[in-house]
């Protein structure tokens, strides 16, 4: 048994180490936010949020270049992520229900394993896959909101499926037994009793997937392709924030560079906003029952 002094010293060192780790984690986050706010904030205005992107301007000083905006691209991102969520959340949640409630040890484990593998797929590969699939079978809409949202959905599905599975497993077995014991059919017990108990955690998983998809640029390069008009129809190419940030950010045009920083800041705010609003809604709904 160590003396109290040694124990106290050891405790102090451990606390200091964990605090240091927190700081290390926070440095990149703070740095990204700071840079985005400083460089992106300078172009922010109502005009920037509503106007379309400007023509590239190569005046070296940048003076007199049109600033333009990213309004249509915000709409494009929301449309793509919305469509992708509409596809991925039901499929993902149902997959989670299967692996947690019906799959058993054989097939259920196998499906869990493959969703894990899918989580690890590089997103550009998913873009190439969707591109290839549509080139072969339906070339008319290779570059469209449909292919873009399918690519994003493929990224989201395994995240939603795995988090749903884990959240459903966390619901005590006794709750399922109680439902069965009342003469409630298994599927209805799952939908009306087990799933609602897991809903806050399932929704958190879905949000995680939304944020992941919202920031993806690579899979969209080969599918949604991009334009300056944002969302103009399901079968049309759609411009969105991440690929535009890539395009503008790597261009030499001074006004595009500034717009890329502005778009980055907006993307961060958008994703954070979605997350915060969804959490507030969930918390209000579940506060009475100690969930959240």
């Amino acid at each position, binding site marked *: 048994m160590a003396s109290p002094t040694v124990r106290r010293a050891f405790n102090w060192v451990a606390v200091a180490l964990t605090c240091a780790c927190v700081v290390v984690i926070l440095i990149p986050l703070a740095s990204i936010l700071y840079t985005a706010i400083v460089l992106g904030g300078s172009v922010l205005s109502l005009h920037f949020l509503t106007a379309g992107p400007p023509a590239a301007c190569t005046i070296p000083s940048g003076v007199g270049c049109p600033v333009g905006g990213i309004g249509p691209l915000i709409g494009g991102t929301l449309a793509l992520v919305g469509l992708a969520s509409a596809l991925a959340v039901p499929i993902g949640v149902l997959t989670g229900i299967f692996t947690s409630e019906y799959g*058993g*040890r054989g097939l259920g484990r196998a499906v869990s394993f493959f969703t894990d593998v899918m989580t690890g797929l590089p997103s550009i590969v998913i873009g190439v896959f969707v591109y290839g699939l549509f080139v072969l079978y339906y070339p008319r809409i290779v570059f469209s909101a449909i292919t873009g949202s399918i690519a994003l959905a493929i990224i989201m599905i395994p995240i939603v499926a795995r988090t749903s599975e884990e959240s459903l497993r966390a*619901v*005590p077995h*006794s*709750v399922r*037994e*109680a*439902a*069965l*014991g*009342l*003469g*409630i*059919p298994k599927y*209805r*017990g799952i939908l*009306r*009793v087990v799933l*609602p*108990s897991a*809903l806050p955690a399932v929704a958190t998983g879905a949000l995680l997937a939304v944020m992941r998809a919202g920031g993806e640029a690579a899979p969209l390069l080969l599918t949604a392709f991009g334009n300056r008009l944002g969302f103009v129809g399901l079968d049309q190419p759609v411009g969105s924030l991440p690929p535009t940030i890539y395009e503008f950010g790597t261009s030499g045009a001074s006004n595009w560079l500034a717009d890329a920083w502005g778009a980055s800041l907006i993307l961060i705010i958008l994703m954070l906003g979605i997350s915060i609003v969804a959490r507030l809604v969930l918390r209000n709904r*579940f506060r*009475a*029952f*100690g*969930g959240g």
Partner: protein
Amino acid sequence: MPTKLETVQLSAFYAKKEAIHEVSLAFPEKTVTAIIGPSGCGKSTLIRCLNRMHEVTPKATTTGEIRLDGEEIHALDPVSVRRRIGMVFQKANPFPTMSVYQNVSAGLRLNGVRHRKELDAAVVRSLKQAALWDEVKDNLDGPGIRLSGGQQQRLCIARALAVEPEVILMDEPCSALDPIATAKIEDLIFDLRQNYTVVIVTHNMQQAARVAEFTAFMYLGKLIEIDRTQKLFENPAEKLTEGYITGRFG
């Protein structure tokens, strides 16, 4: 007293392991029958067979017969069997996202009953039967899981009563409760036999003596003896029973 529920040569297995062996038992209508015995003797497995909850466990099987009003329950739909044979579990398990009202009415609502007056009536009746009405009547919309442990267990009993089953199975319903909450539930069980056939598994021999007209003693998966409770405790026919109730083993 006519027989409500009976088992004939019932054996139950978890994979290949036999948990109960050829148990033949009759439960008379509108009586309370207690099943006692040491841990692991198969009493919980037995009552989980009676409403076909045993088969929900992976790889669990049974052989032999179980008859409800003379009808073999394995020939019936398990969901309808469980609607006629309700169950109260060892640990209170109210539905965590539901209010008191929603918990009690869950069995009806989730089986398609929408009529508000019918639900209201069932909730009031069941909560009164479960001796919980006075404690929760002003807070029916509060969450069920905020109640105390004893109240939660009575809530679960009310929930089981709301669907108007014919038989109620109770698996050590008081094992997680203090003596005051236990006494309330025992009073309740005693009253339930006016309308229901009750089967209760208990560790507690005093509890069996207080609530049950019949008591069955199980040991190592076998039914050793069943008799009127008083007879079983005062003058058991089997040496094993006597050994258990006098505390010489188990």
